[in-house]
């Protein structure tokens, strides 16, 4: 019987942890949702640049070229699923942009420009975006889909937190291949 209060306590603790993990993203000064982090590091800047490029490739993000060229920018997407875990289907995707900058002994990165694209089933039975113009995540939800919209925001927050953890881990541990020495050629014409 003593185990029951312990289970209740554990359940309450896990629910608290869950609630903390899925807290909504903060907004920046322009009112846009973002995940923002500054990290102090001893890793050289050029190594960071190589590692973040590898991360972008590994995560299948698409590099974006900005006019300013100061930041490294890539776009990605989070697929939203509807239904129970084993019996679900995609209902939409949230596109985002990933920004990365280095400065001395630190780097910073942020995820922002979140836009929701609802899915529709196409003629082949696949779920695809029903529009090419996304709805910014900051948009006020209409009354009929408040709960759904809040869920999208929470899923985005959860995804961004996990993304940040993966990125930091990758930058910290990924070994960078040493530059190959130039190939030596044997000259046979003169001997």
């Amino acid at each position, binding site marked *: 019987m003593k185990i029951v209060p312990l289970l209740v306590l554990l359940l309450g603790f896990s629910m608290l942890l869950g609630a903390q993990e899925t807290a909504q993203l903060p907004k920046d000064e322009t009112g846009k949702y973002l995940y923002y982090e500054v990290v102090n590091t001893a890793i050289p800047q050029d190594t960071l640049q190589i590692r973040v490029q590898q991360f972008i490739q590994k995560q299948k993000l698409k590099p974006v070229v900005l006019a300013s060229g100061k930041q490294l920018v890539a776009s990605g997407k989070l697929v939203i*699923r509807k*239904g129970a*875990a*084993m*019996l*679900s*289907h*995609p209902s939409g995707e949230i596109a985002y942009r990933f920004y990365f900058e280095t400065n001395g002994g630190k780097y910073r990165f942020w995820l922002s420009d979140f836009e929701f694209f*609802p899915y*529709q*089933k*196409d*003629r*082949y*039975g*696949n*779920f695809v975006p029903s*529009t*090419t*113009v996304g*709805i910014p995540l900051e948009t006020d939800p*209409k009354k*009929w*889909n408040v709960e*759904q919209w809040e869920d999208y925001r929470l899923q985005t927050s959860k995804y961004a937190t996990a993304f940040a953890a993966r990125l930091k881990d990758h930058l910290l541990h990924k070994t960078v291949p040493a530059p190959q020495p130039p190939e030596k050629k044997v000259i046979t014409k003169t001997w």
Partner: protein
Amino acid sequence: MKKNIAALSLLLLTTATVAVAQEKASPLEISGSVDTYYKYDFNKSGNIKTYFAGEQNSVSLGMIDLALKKTTGKASFVGELSFGPRGQYESIPDAAGGYDPTANGFNIQNLYVNYAFTDKFSMTAGYMGTFIGYEVISPAANFNYSTSYLFGSGPFQNAGIKGTYAFSDKVSLMVGLFNEWNQYRASRGVSSLGGQLMISPVKGWTAYINGLHGLDGYGNYSTVIDLTTAYQITDKVKIGLNAADLSAGDDKFGYSGVALYPQYAFTPSVALGLRAEYFNYKGISGGPSASVTSFTLSGNIKSGGLTFIPEVRFDNDKDFSQGFVKSDGTTLNKSAAQFSLAAVYSF
């Protein structure tokens, strides 16, 4: 030659599918739709057949559509069946592989396997929704509830094997070998060659240029050329276009038509759209052709998975090819008009 290529492609697909059997699998996707509607014809007759919803003053059933999809590594399958009038005896083929309105079967919408050899190249074999045209059988994927004359002229599905190569996000090419239209199995061998060029010149604008040559659903060797395009100009304004021409047999009979689909979204859940269509039946052996014009105004009001589609439609049949009648039920009439209200639930 076509048979050999088809067999070789199928063998490749099978080998590759077996090779990834041990790879990580995605959850089984279950999705589908259910639809029902009320229709009232202003001449009190089921004038505009629209291929579905041909009754008068009736609350009627569409269909229940059930789809399964699973992806394992680079391999995936889709199986999609429909039951009910729209996906059953109003669609072809029926369960026996033919068209018998009295048969109480079902209709296969999709039943295929796919293997993505790379991020750019994939192959698909089985029975697939056709790549020709703008509208489809499932009401969940159409804006208007009633369908166009272009849609009704087919094809609806193609059984075969096809390969798709994406040169970039903006250009891809599909080439495939197919049975005759709308048949689960070939009656005269793999008889058709088809292709689709997709181009996306600017963000939001996608155009599909389609061609299919071979045995059609009418028992003739025909060639159909089709352009299907849509442009999401802003978050509120979208415009679509479908134009097609089919020439069949030695007498080059067939059809040609064009339909325009302007749409305006007042909110993400409320939109209004027009379909304006001109359709021409080509005369056989140089005989007179017959044309129809049609205007359909539809609303889409969404709430969760449910979409209400109120719709009014006016058709003009100047050559009396459609058999529209006046309210007495016998006198032929050049025009017909109807109102319908459909409810489509997608899950």
